[in-house]
C-alpha cells in the first residue's frame, strides 16, 4: 500500500450478522497492531436486528480525511440485498466475499470468494460466530496487508471473554475455508 493511498473495505448485511463487529475488529487490528490509520464507520436503520446494516473500514498509511468508502477495494456481502446495493461501488478488480447461502446472484463473470459463514458458525456452535468466520476469511484474503495474528488478537479483545475460544475456532475455520477453497466464477 502506497502512502496516502486509501484501502477501503465495506461489510454489509442485516443487523444481527455481526456486520458492525467485523468493522470494529478490522479497524482496531489495522490501527493497534499494524500501526496504520483506519477509520471505521457504520450505518443503521431505525430497526436493529434484521434491518439493513453496513460497516466500513478505510485504511491508509497517511491521514484519512473523508471517513467513508468512495470506491471499495473489498465488499463483504452477507445478504443479496447488500450485494445488489453495493456491487456498483466495488472496484472492477475489487475483492468480493459472499455467504453463498444468502447471496445467490452475483454479476456474471465476476471472480469472488464464497464462505458459508452462517453454516460454518453453526457447526462451531452458534450462528453468532459468523463474524469471526468472516474475519478469519478476510485474514487469509488480505494476508499481504495484515498479519493473521493481529486480527486474532483483535478478535479476542472484542468478543465476550467466555466466547473467545469459540470465536477463535470460528476464525480458524473461516481462514481454512479460504486457504483450501478455489475462487468461484459467477455464471
Amino acid at each position, binding site marked *: 500500500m502506497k502512502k496516502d493511498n486509501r484501502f477501503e473495505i465495506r461489510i454489509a448485511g442485516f443487523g444481527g450478522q455481526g456486520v458492525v463487529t467485523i468493522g470494529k475488529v478490522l479497524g*482496531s487490528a489495522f490501527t493497534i497492531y499494524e500501526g496504520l490509520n483506519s477509520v471505521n464507520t457504520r450505518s443503521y436503520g431505525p430497526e436493529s436486528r434484521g434491518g439493513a446494516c453496513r460497516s466500513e473500514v478505510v485504511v491508509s498509511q497517511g491521514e484519512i480525511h473523508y471517513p467513508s468508502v468512495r470506491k471499495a477495494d473489498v465488499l463483504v456481502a452477507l445478504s443479496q440485498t447488500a450485494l445488489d446495493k453495493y456491487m456498483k461501488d466495488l472496484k472492477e478488480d475489487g475483492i468480493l466475499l459472499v455467504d453463498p447461502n444468502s447471496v445467490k446472484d452475483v454479476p456474471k463473470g465476476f471472480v469472488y470468494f464464497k464462505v458459508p459463514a452462517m453454516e460454518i458458525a453453526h457447526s462451531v456452535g452458534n450462528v453468532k460466530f459468523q463474524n469471526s468466520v468472516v474475519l478469519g476469511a478476510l485474514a487469509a484474503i488480505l494476508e499481504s496487508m495484515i498479519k493473521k495474528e493481529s486480527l486474532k488478537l483483535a478478535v479476542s479483545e472484542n468478543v465476550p471473554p467466555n466466547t473467545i475460544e469459540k470465536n477463535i475456532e470460528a476464525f480458524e475455520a473461516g481462514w481454512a475455508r479460504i486457504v483450501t477453497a478455489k475462487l468461484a466464477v459467477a455464471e
Partner: protein
Amino acid sequence: MDETVLGEKKYRGEFIKPGRHYLEGSEACVEGALLAGMKVYAGYPITPASEIMEHASRRLPQFGGRFIQMEDEISAACTLIGASWAGAKAMTATSSPGFSLMQEAISFSIMTETPLVIVDVQRPGPGQGYITTSQEDVMQARYGHHGEGPIIALAPSSVQDMFELTIEAFNLSEKWRTPVLIMAEETVAHMREQLIVPELDTIEIIGRKKPQGLGITPENYLPYGHELVPPMANFGEGYNINHVSLAHHADGNVGNYSLKAHRENIERLHQKIEGSVNEIARVESQFLGDCDHVLICYGSVARTGLEAVKEVRELHGIKMGFIRLVTLWPFPEEILRNLISTVKTVFVPEMNLGMMKHPIAEALRDKCDQVISIPEIGALHNPEKLVDKVLEVSTC
C-alpha cells in the same frame, strides 16, 4: 488515577492510559470528560447520543462520580445546574429533540453563570426527525434559548477532537463560568479511529475561580460581581449565594430592580463571551496563501471538505483554500476576516440547508464575490459532490 473519598468509601478510577487507542467518538468524549474532572452525568437516552450515556454509566461510578438517568432531558439539564453549584463538574449528552428540551436550562445557566457541558449529537429534524447525522442545530445552539445570552459551542470532527474538545469544553465552562455546547454529529460520535492520549500531566485542566483564592470574605462576596468573570463560591462553603436567573444585581439581589441594572448585567454577560471571542474561538486553515476560492466548513464535514480541497488542487489545479471552524460560537468573525484577503467564491458545505453560511457571508461580505452553500440532509456529503460544485462554479 483519581482518588475520591465519598463518605467511608474510597474510589480509585483509572484514567485512560497515554498512548494509542482505537475508540468510538462517544467513548473518547467520556474519557476526556473524566480527565477534565467530570463528577456528575445526568442524562436521558436518545439515538444517536446513547453511547455517551452508556459509557458514562460504566466509567463514572469507578471514580465515585454520580451517574443518574433522569426522567427526561429537562430534568437532566437542570440536574447539571444543581451539581455545578454543589461544586461538581457536570455533563450530559443528548440529540436534537432532547436538545430542544434543554434550552430553558441553557438560558438559565447563562444568566446564573453556571459552568456545565452539554453534548448535542445532532440528528436530522424537525420533530423527532430521523436518526442519522446532521448539523441542523447549529443555529439553535446560539439562538435556541430565549434572551440575549451568548454561548460557547465547539464542533468536533474526529475521535481525537471528541476527546480534546470535551476537555476544552470543561475548561472553557469553568474559565468563563458559562455553559459550553459540543455540537457533535452522529458521524463523529459513532466513528472509530485512532486516539492518541498524551502524558496525563501535560493535559491542562482548568478549575473555577473561587472567592477564597482572591481573599474575598463571605461578607464581601458578590456572586455576580467583582470581575468580568465573577468568582464562584460553591453551595455550602459559607458564602451566601442568591442563585437566581431573574435580572439581578451583583450581589444576587432582585429588589430595587431597574432597567439600568438589567442592561449592565446583560452587557457584561455579552462582553464576557463575545468580547473575548478572539481568546475563546479557534479556526484551522490550510492552503490560504494564494487561493482564488475558499471552502469553509466545520464538524465532520471538514473531513470531506479537506479531501475535496486537496483533490481540486491536485487533480484540477484550482487554487482552493480550506478553513475549519473549530468554534462555532462565539462566531470568529475577526479571525476569519484576518485570514482571508479577497477571494472569488466562498463555498460552505453543511449538513443542513445553509445555516453557518449566514454569519460567514456577513463576516466576509466585502472579501468575496459570492458565498455558495452546499447543503446535505441526513448524511455526510461525499467528496464528489463538493468537487463537482467547485468545478461547476470555478470554470464558468
